[in-house]
């Protein structure tokens, strides 16, 4: 039950939100011209990163707005929140270590080395 800072409503509990999966997957403008493989890429292929992931979230039990979130999936630390339509920000710093690697802290990992934008 982590907190998410809705760009409109401010910090709220996770239960007010729904995760919409990976961000920046744009629906192709010319589907008929695409091969099966290209379409399948759009349709099915998703990254499932243990670490920094770009996601879409919706404040479904609040203002119902969609926005983008950069989240460390290993620690649920939210690194950045930005609006729909904005391009993905560069997250500087080392890739955080995963819990099964050598954790910097506890059994999870933390991106204290991350420069937060």
């Amino acid at each position: 039950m982590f907190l998410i800072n809705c760009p409109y409503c401010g910090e709220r509990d996770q239960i007010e939100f729904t995760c919409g999966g990976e961000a920046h997957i744009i629906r192709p403008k010319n589907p008929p011209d695409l091969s099966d493989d290209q379409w399948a890429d759009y349709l099915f292929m998703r990254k499932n990163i243990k670490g920094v992931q770009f996601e879409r979230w919706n404040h479904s039990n609040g203002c119902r707005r969609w926005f983008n979130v950069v989240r460390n999936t290993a620690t649920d630390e939210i690194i950045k929140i930005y609006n729909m339509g904005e391009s993905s920000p560069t997250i500087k710093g080392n890739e955080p270590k995963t819990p099964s690697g050598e954790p910097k802290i506890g059994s999870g990992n933390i991106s204290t080395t991350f420069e937060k934008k």
Partner: protein
Amino acid sequence: MLKKEETVLFKKHNIENYSKIKIEEIQNIKKINLRFDPNSKELKSITSKILDIIIPTIPNTYSEKEKQKIIWLGPNEWLIIDSEEKLDDDLLNKSLGDENASVTNISESKTILRISGKKTFSLLSKFLVLDLEKNLSNDHLCVQTIFLKVPILLVRNKNFDNIIEIDIFINRSHVNYIYNILIDGTKNLDF
């Protein structure tokens, strides 16, 4: 002429802790959902002119005049409520047009339960994960959140004699469940 159902509640309960908490259904309120892009100065001025209230653009606030409130629901969405049912939504609809705005009467899809009394926040804290003291610290604040699994809107009314009064807007179909569990919650309020 068809008969109007006065209340959506099946059964009314007496509350043991009546001195500390009061729960009632507020009827006969006109509720209009309003959508348009607030960057459009034209639409904004038409709306303000007809309603004679400023459209709130600060999230989770409402503006109020006499019996009317305009409640912020989202960056391009508001709820207008009118307790005298005088609001002319047809006029608003026609004036704003149907291309760049939307005016929808939802009076009967939302029911209002009004909770008041000094234990209001205690009762609600049994069901809401939201920080009530922060998000509804004074009047002119409103907040949309989740009540168990139901999306709701909470509006803090003006204080009378320092008694907190909150209106909860609930989907009509959920009201009986929510009302009953609220009544159940009034049993233990001193914690």
